[in-house]
């Protein structure tokens, strides 16, 4: 292909993502979500004003991919670490990034209380219904019947309960300014997801408070399907359990 003469680069790597091969499996949603976040960082031109917090989970190495200041947090404590940063640096833009095991299991208390305090941070919650990093155990968000390393016969609500809907849970709190659930199951949905992320950024940049974007995301490896099938399952099986939509919006309220 000869692109040099008549064509110009219309879409390329965002500046704030580092050009490196990630450790993610083929077709993993984390890569898409990283990119979306970095596109918005570039859009707002705030790369040099960010401190982000990476989780323990497959995205633990996010700090290798984001080209802005990034901190590790112990498993599940990401919102507490982000709180500690934002409180002393109120004029920096602070976001945290978490998986479902990190956020909805071990870190349940931290996310609820950060949300309830209305910390001026954005949280990007990657719900792939499984523990990727540790080889595919049940997550709090695993759907009923889902086979995982710890539910070999499928998640049984009688003993393991039901998938937790975190947006719905957080929406009962008064403080959060913006809560939305999106899916990255298709180019269309990815564009919607990007819009949601943009709104989250805006929420913090305009001093409105806590924002939370849940992104339904595929884990082809531990769903044990290929990446294309994973995207289809995301639509067919996850979205019905985790309905997309806006659960809180400071712009609607005023």
């Amino acid at each position, binding site marked *: *292909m000869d*692109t040099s003469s*008549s*064509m*110009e*680069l*219309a*879409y*390329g*790597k*965002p500046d704030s*993502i580092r*050009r490196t*091969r*990630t450790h*993610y*499996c*083929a*077709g*993993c*949603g*984390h*890569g*898409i979500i990283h*990119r979306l976040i970095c*596109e918005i960082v570039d859009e707002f031109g705030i790369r040099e004003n960010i401190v982000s917090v990476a989780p323990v989970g497959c995205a633990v190495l996010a700090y290798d991919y984001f080209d802005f200041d990034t901190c590790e947090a112990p498993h599940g404590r990401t919102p507490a670490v982000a709180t500690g940063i934002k409180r002393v640096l109120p004029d920096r833009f602070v976001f945290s990034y978490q998986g479902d095991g990190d956020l909805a299991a071990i870190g349940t208390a931290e996310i609820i209380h950060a949300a309830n305090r209305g910390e001026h941070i954005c949280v990007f919650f990657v719900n792939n219904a499984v523990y990727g990093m540790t080889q595919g155990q049940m997550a709090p968000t695993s759907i009923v019947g889902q086979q995982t390393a710890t539910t070999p016969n499928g998640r049984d609500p009688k003993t393991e309960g039901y998938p937790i809907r975190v947006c719905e849970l957080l929406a009962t709190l008064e403080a959060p300014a913006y809560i939305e659930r999106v899916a*990255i199951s*298709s*180019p269309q949905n*990815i*564009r919607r997801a*990007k*819009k949601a992320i943009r709104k989250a950024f805006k929420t913090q940049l305009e001093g409105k408070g806590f924002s939370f974007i849940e992104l339904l995301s595929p884990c*082809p490896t531990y769903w044990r399907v*290929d*990446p*294309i099938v994973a*995207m289809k399952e995301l639509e067919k099986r996850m979205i019905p359990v985790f309905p997309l939509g806006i659960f809180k919006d400071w712009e609607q309220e005023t």
Partner: protein
Amino acid sequence: MAAVRILEEYCKSCGLCIEFCPRSALSLGANINRHGCRPAVFDESKQCSGCGNCTAICPDVAIELYARVKAEAAVKKASR
């Protein structure tokens, strides 16, 4: 009219760009890169529309999209 370029070293052969290309302009190549993957290849003949589906869904930022200058604005919007 537009075109894409696959950055072979980053492609993981997930096939998502192929699945979502409305013009079927992408397919898995025969070549194996040093990571053991067979990067997607672009078929110029397939009239790439510059829709940005492939760049939107590629999990590995392994696709660059090129467009004629005048089309650029529209494309940028689409990729969002």
